[in-house]
């Protein structure tokens, strides 16, 4: 671990800008606690982590006697000032926030006399932090362990005020589901108003996009899990919300700002608005469309754009969202539709939007197609279009984001079990995600079993305890993945 952030493997390959002091300290602390778990005191990497930790401390102290890094409503504050993170560090910061939450501590106060602390004392403290998350009354346990030892250079701030800590997992899930259905309802409301020639505003859609961005920052895995929601009867609206979510996940991964993410989210929510102008009998036609029917369908990106154009939105928003909405069926090589000759490539947002759109469409059962691709196969298929249909770089980002088996993929395991992917393995083995075992229930459906990591090995034979035989599509078994994920 060194000060050079380029050398840090955080699973994200987009970091170059030096971190702010607060972010640097949070990272350094986190990596120290992680590294001390697996290395002995004389390990070079661990020593480098201690050096970086002390460097970060010195950076935060400046000439002060002490500094405080504290969580306040889900965000870090350094000396009362909100820590601004780089977008690419959001994953790591979230991990540090999770870590603090697990430890039951709201913050740390570090004193300048850390200069007098030995490396061993610092490592001992890091080991305590490493163990504290596994204890019952975490704060009491930690206080007891610290008592009488040479830790006068550090003070733990207790997370007594629950307002200060992030929302609990269940509360977050409920909020996420609520945001999802509010999003559906808002898109439906706009569409219905437009269909009945009434004026529609974007206030709700904007709020929803902002909610989704907040959720994304708070818990991107949870947000991604939401995108597995499928509703055959209300496809257009679930699809719109799913495209917004997938786009946001991609946008965050490439480092878009909060404000750009808001706009990208709005693009996703509104991209299919033009379908209100396509006759229902065409949209709901079970078989293959005739050329003239398909021609009608092909008009929907233009219609979507025109609807947004006519809305009383501010100019900034309008200029940012109408082109991606218009281009979401355009391909990277500018084939696709609608074709206009304007001498420039597909916009960045549209490139993101089109990938999200295709992925969600391929993994959903449609009225004209009674079978869907499983998420991993949809991704494999999309990879074949790299450089032609999709931006090759963004597609790589998407593959790395979703993993070999994206969340919501149903796997047949060599144990005979069926496992639903609930989280991609963030480590090196992307082909071995965490799965929730689904067990048959009495009603012919499924119930939740245990969660396993497919990277788990038998300690004796060192062979994997479970292996993937093949992927399946949840819809083939009537499974709504979100029901088990949320």
């Amino acid at each position: 671990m060194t000060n050079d952030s380029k050398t840090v493997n955080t699973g994200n390959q987009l970091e170059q800008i030096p971190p702010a002091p607060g972010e640097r300290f949070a990272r350094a602390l986190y990596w120290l606690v992680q590294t001390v778990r697996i290395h002995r005191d004389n390990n070079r990497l661990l020593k480098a982590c201690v050096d970086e930790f002390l460097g970060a401390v010195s950076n935060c102290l400046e000439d002060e006697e002490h500094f405080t890094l504290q969580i306040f409503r889900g965000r870090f504050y350094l000396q009362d000032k909100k820590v601004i993170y780089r977008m690419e560090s959001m994953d790591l910061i979230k991990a540090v926030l999770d870590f603090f939450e697990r430890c039951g501590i709201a913050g740390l106060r570090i004193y300048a006399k850390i200069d007098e602390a030995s490396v061993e004392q610092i490592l001992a403290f890091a080991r305590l932090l490493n163990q504290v998350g596994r204890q019952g009354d975490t704060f009491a346990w930690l206080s007891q362990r610290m008592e009488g030892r040479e830790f006068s250079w550090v003070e733990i701030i207790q997370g007594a005020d629950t307002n200060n800590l992030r929302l609990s997992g269940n509360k977050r899930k409920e909020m996420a589901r609520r945001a999802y259905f509010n999003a559906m309802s808002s898109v439906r409301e706009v569409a219905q108003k437009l269909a009945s020639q009434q004026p529609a505003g974007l206030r709700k859609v904007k709020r929803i996009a902002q909610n989704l961005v907040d959720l994304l920052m708070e818990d991107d895995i949870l947000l991604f899990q939401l995108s597995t929601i499928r509703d055959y009867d209300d496809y257009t609206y679930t699809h719109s919300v799913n495209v917004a979510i997938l786009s946001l996940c991609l946008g965050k991964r490439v480092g878009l700002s909060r404000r750009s993410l808001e706009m990208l989210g709005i693009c996703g929510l509104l991209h299919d608005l033009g379908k209100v102008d396509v006759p229902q009998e065409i949209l709901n036609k079970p078989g293959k469309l005739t050329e003239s029917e398909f021609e009608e369908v092909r008009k929907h990106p233009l219609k979507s754009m025109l609807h947004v154009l006519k809305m009383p939105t501010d100019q900034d928003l309008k200029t940012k969202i109408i082109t991606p909405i218009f281009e979401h069926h355009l391909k990277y090589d500018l084939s696709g539709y609608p074709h206009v000759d304007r001498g420039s490539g597909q916009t960045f947002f549209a490139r993101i939007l089109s990938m999200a759109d295709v992925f969600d469409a391929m993994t959903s059962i449609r009225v004209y197609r009674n079978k869907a691709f499983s998420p991993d196969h949809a991704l494999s298929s999309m990879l074949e279009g790299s450089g032609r249909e999709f931006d090759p770089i963004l597609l790589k980002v998407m593959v790395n984001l979703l993993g070999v088996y994206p969340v919501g993929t149903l796997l047949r395991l060599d144990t005979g079990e069926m496992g639903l992917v609930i989280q991609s393995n963030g480590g090196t083995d992307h082909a071995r995600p965490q799965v929730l075992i689904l067990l048959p229930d009495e009603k012919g459906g499924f119930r939740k079993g245990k969660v396993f990591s497919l990277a788990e090995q038998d300690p004796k034979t060192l062979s994997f305890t479970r292996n993937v035989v093949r992927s399946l599509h949840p819809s083939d078994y009537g499974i709504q993945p979100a029901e088990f994920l949320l």
Partner: protein
Amino acid sequence: MEEGSGLSGEPASTEVVQAIKDVISSFLTAMKNYALYPEDHSISQKSVENVSARLNDFFSSYSDLRLDISKDGILFESEIVHQSPPELRDLGFLLFRDGIEWIEFRRGLELDELSRFFKILDDSRDVSQQSNSDLVTSLWEADFSYIGHETTEILWEEDALIDLTDLHVTGKEIQTVSSPLNDISEGGIMLQAIDLSKWVLTAQEINDLRETVIAEEKAGSSEEMLNLLLSVLDGPLHEKDFKDILVVLHDEFRDLLAGLELQMAFNLMKGLNGIRQSCEKKKPEVLPLLDHFLESVHSPEVLNAIHQIWPVLDILESHRKMLQETLILLPPAAILTLGPMLLEISSPHAQRLLTYTIESLASRDIRPLERLLADPRGDLLQRLLPVLRNLKGEESRQALVKMARHPLEQVRIQVIETLLERDEQSIEDLFPSIQDESETISRIVLEHLGKRRSEVAERLFLDYLKGRSFPREDSSHVLACYRALGRCGSNRSVSFLKEVLLAHGWSLGLLRSLDRQGAALALRALNTDEAEEVLRKAKGSVLPGVRGAYQKAMEGQ
């Protein structure tokens, strides 16, 4: 930021409540001032400074200030510190209306953040069903560091949370085993799991992506949108959609001008002119729409943006050039808006730019300029004269001729001078002005006509002098006309002048004497052998009147 507000647990003391009431009172004053004055007005700024001072007093005496919002008012630790009347100018009501549950002001809050907060409050007062933002969305976008808030979902029904088991992942008629895609998902053709090592981003790709993202964050998308809309207009499009896009472009053009995005404004006008041309054959049905757009885009509502941006334009030549090129693409009727600006913007750069633009537009169609010239205000006409002076062609000449009858002498003088310099035809049109009620004008015309030999002028003078309407009672005018004839004429006039000078008879009396004198003057000015011959005869004439006329002419009278 200490624990919570630092005051929790105990009922708020009277002093604390009073301090909070003082803060809220300063808030209300600032809101009122923001509603009345621009945000950069000294009154607005002072009121924010006052809020800041009150807050800082509070912070130093107590802690961060967290206020809960209820339908009845603003609460501090369950105690109402402000009753909210249901009025949009009230802080509590405004916050409550948009679903703010609590709002918190933290130590470290700076003036700039506070000013932006009041701007947001002011902008958010007017929210309708069709709005695209409100207080909550604006606060989110502001992403303040020291003003926190929590909202409740007032825009959605509480029961919006659908049970996921109620959603169907498939249609009822779906048969899960009959699709060819079964081969993909259930065996048969088993796709290989993705080998992620093949999809790792290279250093170059990471760099490219980073640059793309940076560019995306920086770029305004107006250009992108304009290009798109122009392309869409050029393709197959329903008339109504065509019209809708033009409405957007109208506003966009105004904003581009006001925002000094002159290259884009130019591109937009150029694109639309191109589309208009291509539509003449491809889509004649949309031509009226385009024409209406082009008419509306030069209205004062749009072009008045030039007033705002002129201080910058005065400094930047490149911007002036781009504006000029843009304005030239407007329809000639834009002269009606641009012309009066000549009186409103005093900068010499502006005068030159507007004059050139008007000249260019008038060269395509002079009628709007003519309408403007009908304006009785002489100062505007004088500003427009340089335009007319440079305009070529019969239409502009006719416009000048009309203006030569303008009631203001000063205007007529300038018009006539311009016309006289143009060509022979103008001489013919302006010849009547030798009888202008203004002596100055009459003199100018006569002097001008006498400056050079001109067959046209000679003919006109001959006709005039021979005509019955010739005002012989005005002796100086009579002599001036003869003198001018002599200067512009030729030997063609000699016979007439000879007849006037040498003819016998007394019937015309004094008037005849004046004519003789004039004829002698003209002949002297002609300065030809033939004229000299007549003058010699006059000198030796038996008639004293003839000799006298000769004598006066020689003396230069």
